[in-house]
C-alpha cells in the first residue's frame, strides 16, 4: 500500500507538472488576449511528433531544443496571420478559428505519420533505473521529465516576476492600451507570448512523447483535460492553474492505480436482480472511472464555486 502511495505520488506530481507546462501557457494566453486557444494541445502533439522525427534525424538532445522552437514559430504565425485578423469578428470567432486549427492539425498529423502509435524511445543516455523503492525500479527518464518541468516552472516565475520583460507582459495582461501608450509594441508582446506558450506546450510534448503514447489522437484526449484544469483553477489565474494541474494529475494517477469497486468493498449484489444501472455502478472499478474523474471535478467545482479555485472574475 505504501509502495503504491509513493509511486503514485511521484507519477501524479510528474503528470501534474506536465499539465502545468501546458496550462501555464494556455492561461497566460487567455488572460492576455481573452482567447482560449483550442489548438494548445495540438501544439503539444506537434511537439511530440516533431521531437520523434528530429530524434530520428539528428538525435534527442538537439530535438529537445529545435522542436519547441519550430512549434513556437508556428504558434507566432498563427497569432500574427490568423488570430489578429479574426480579432475584429470577436472572441467566438477566435475560439472557432483555433478549434478548426486543432481539427486540421490532427488530420495533417495522422496523414503524415499515420494513426497508430509511434515507436518514440527514451534516449539511451537516460534509459536506466534511477533508484529502486519497494522493489520497483523508477526510471531515470521520469526524473529527467520532472526536473525539466520544475526548471521551466522556476524560470517562468523568475521571468514573469523579476525581469523587465515580465513586467511588460504582466502590465499588458490588464492594461494593454496603457502599455501601448508607454511605447511598447503590444502586438509584438502578444505574438511573443503566444509563441512562448506554444513552445512550452511543444517542450512538454517532446519530453512526454517517449514516456506516454505518441499518437495522432493525443491532442484530442489531452485537450479536454487541459480545459478542465484551467476552468478548475480559475480562468486566467496562474497559481490556480498550478494547483489544479497538481490536483488533477494526482487524482487521475491515483484513480488509475486503485482497483477497488463498490462490489469489492461491500460484496457483490444479489445476482437474481439482473443487470441494471445499479450493477454497472456497483461493479465498475475506480481505475475504469479514472477518465471521467476530471470532468466530475469540473461539475462539482461549477456547482460549489463557479469562478474556479483561484478565479476572481465571474466571466
Amino acid at each position, binding site marked *: 500500500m505504501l509502495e503504491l502511495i509513493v509511486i503514485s505520488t511521484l507519477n501524479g506530481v510528474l503528470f501534474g507538472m506536465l499539465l502545468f507546462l501546458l496550462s501555464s501557457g494556455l492561461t497566460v494566453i487567455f488572460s492576455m488576449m481573452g482567447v482560449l486557444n483550442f489548438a494548445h494541445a495540438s501544439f503539444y502533439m506537434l511537439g511530440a511528433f516533431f521531437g520523434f522525427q528530429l530524434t530520428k534525424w539528428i538525435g534527442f538532445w538537439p530535438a529537445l531544443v529545435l522542436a519547441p522552437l519550430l512549434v513556437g514559430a508556428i504558434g507566432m504565425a498563427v497569432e500574427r496571420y490568423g488570430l489578429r*485578423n479574426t480579432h475584429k469578428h470577436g472572441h467566438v470567432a477566435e*475560439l472557432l478559428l483555433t*478549434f478548426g486549427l486543432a*481539427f486540421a492539425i490532427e488530420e495533417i498529423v495522422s*496523414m*503524415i505519420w499515420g494513426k497508430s502509435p509511434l515507436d518514440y524511445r527514451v534516449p539511451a543516455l537516460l534509459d536506466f533505473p534511477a533508484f529502486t523503492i519497494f522493489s520497483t525500479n523508477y526510471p531515470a527518464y521520469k526524473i529527467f521529465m520532472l526536473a525539466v518541468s520544475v526548471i521551466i516552472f522556476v524560470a517562468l516565475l523568475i521571468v514573469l516576476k523579476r525581469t523587465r520583460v515580465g513586467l511588460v507582459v504582466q502590465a499588458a495582461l490588464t492594461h494593454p492600451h496603457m502599455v501601448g501608450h508607454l511605447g511598447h509594441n503590444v502586438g509584438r508582446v502578444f505574438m511573443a507570448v503566444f509563441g512562448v506558450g506554444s513552445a512550452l506546450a511543444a517542450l512538454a510534448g517532446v519530453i512526454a512523447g517517449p514516456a506516454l503514447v505518441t499518437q495522432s489522437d493525443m491532442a484530442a484526449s489531452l485537450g479536454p483535460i487541459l*480545459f478542465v484544469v484551467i476552468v478548475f483553477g480559475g480562468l486566467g489565474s496562474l497559481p490556480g492553474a498550478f494547483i489544479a494541474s497538481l490536483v488533477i494529475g494526482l487524482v487521475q494517477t491515483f484513480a488509475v492505480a486503485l482497483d477497488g469497486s463498490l462490489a469489492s468493498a461491500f460484496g457483490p449484489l444479489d445476482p437474481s436482480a439482473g443487470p441494471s444501472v445499479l450493477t454497472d455502478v456497483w461493479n465498475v472499478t475506480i481505475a475504469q472511472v479514472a477518465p471521467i474523474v476530471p470532468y466530475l471535478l*469540473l461539475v462539482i467545482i461549477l456547482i460549489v464555486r*463557479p469562478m474556479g479555485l483561484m478565479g476572481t472574475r465571474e466571466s
Partner: protein
Amino acid sequence: MTTATTSTSKVAADSVGGSLRFYGIWLIGIFVLIVLPMIFSSGGSLTSFSLIGIAIVFALSYNILLGQTGLLSFGHAVHYGLGGFAACHMMNAVVSHGWPIPLPFIPLFGGLGGLVFAMIIGWVMTKRAGTVFAMISLGIGELVASSSLILRSVFGGESGITTDRTALPKLLGWSFGPQLQVYYLIAFWLVLSAIAMYALTRTPLGRICNAVRDNPERVQFIGYDPHVVRYIAFCFAGFFAGIAGGLAAINFEIANSAYLGAIQSGLVLFSTFIGGTAYFFGPILGAILVTYLQLGLTNLTTAWQLYFGIIFIGIVMYAPGGIAGLLMMHRPLIRAGTLWTVIPSYLLAIVPTVALACGVILTIETVARFSGGDPINLFGIAFNPTSPVTWIAAAVLVVGGGFVARLTWQRIAEAWDRAATVARDRGYLA
C-alpha cells in the same frame, strides 16, 4: 389625405405580398421534400436524403444556441445521442409491452430524452455564457461520452443498442420497412421541427434570446434574468437535438456511443457555422453541404476531414457570416440593380481561385498518398504522388494561383465597394 391612404394601402399590399412570399417559400420547401424521392428514387439517394434531413434538424437545433442565444457549445451531440438512446429504448419497450404507439411518434420520445437531460444539467451549465460555457459544454460532452461506456446496461457498451422499427404497430398500413417510408417520416418531422423552431424565433422568448446574445447587461436592466433565458433556450435546443437523435435511431435502428461523441458535436458546429448562424436558413444550407460532402468525399479521399477543417477555417477568417451571410450580402445590390457591375470581376476571379484550390487539393493528396502510391485523379487527369512532376504542378498551382487570385480578389473588393456605394445612395443599404 390621398397620399396617406395610398401609403397605407401600399403597406397592406406589401405585407400581403410579403406573407405570400413567406408562405410560398415554406410551401415550396414542403413540395420539394415530397417530390424529391420521386425524381431521385435510387436507394443511395434516399439514404442520403434521410441523413441530410436528420442533419438539418440537428443543425437547426444547434442554431438555437449559437445563432439565437450566442452560446457556443462543444457538446451538443450529448442531447442528440441521448435522444437516440431514449428512442431506441422506447421502441424496444413498445414492442415488448405491446403498447399501441406507432413509429411516427417515437422521435417525440427522443426529444423528451434530450430535453430531460438538458433540464437536469442545463441550470449549472448556463450560469455563465461565452468561453466558460464553451469549456463546460466540452467537459460535459466528454463526461457523458465516457460514462456511456461504463453504464453498459443503459448504453450497451461499445456495440450499442439495436432495435427493429418494423416491429412497432403500423400506422395507416405503413410498416416503415422500406427506406422511402422512413424518408417521408424524417421529412415530416423535419417540416414540423423547422416550423416550430422558426416560430420560436418569432416569439418574445426568441427575441429576448437575441437580446441576451447581444447585451446581457441591458436584458438584466429591463427585468429579465439572462441565466433563465439561456436555460430555456438550452432546453429547447436539447429537445430538438433529441428529436434529430430519435430520427437517427429510427433510420439506423441502432444507438451507440459514437452518437454522443466529440466528432458528432464538431460536425454540427461545422454545419451550422459554415451555413451561417445569422439567418434561419443558414444551418439548413450548412447541413446539406456538410452531409453531402461527408458522403461524397469519404469515397474519394482519406483526408476528407482535413478539407472540412480548411473550409471551416476559411469561413471563420474570411466570411464569419457563413454561406447564408455571403448570399444575403448580395440582396441590397440586387435591389439597387448594381450587382451586374460586380459579376465581371467574379467571373475573372473564378479561374485563378479554382487553380489555387486544385493546387491545395493536389498538395494534400500528394502528402496523404505518398506512402501508398495510389494515383490522384483530379478532373480525369491522373497524378502520381511520388513523381516530382506532381510536386512541381502543385507548387505552381498554389503559388501562381494564389498570387493571381489575390489580385482578382482585390478587384472584387473594389468593384464591390463601388456597387455598394451606389446601392447606399439609392437607399438600399444602411
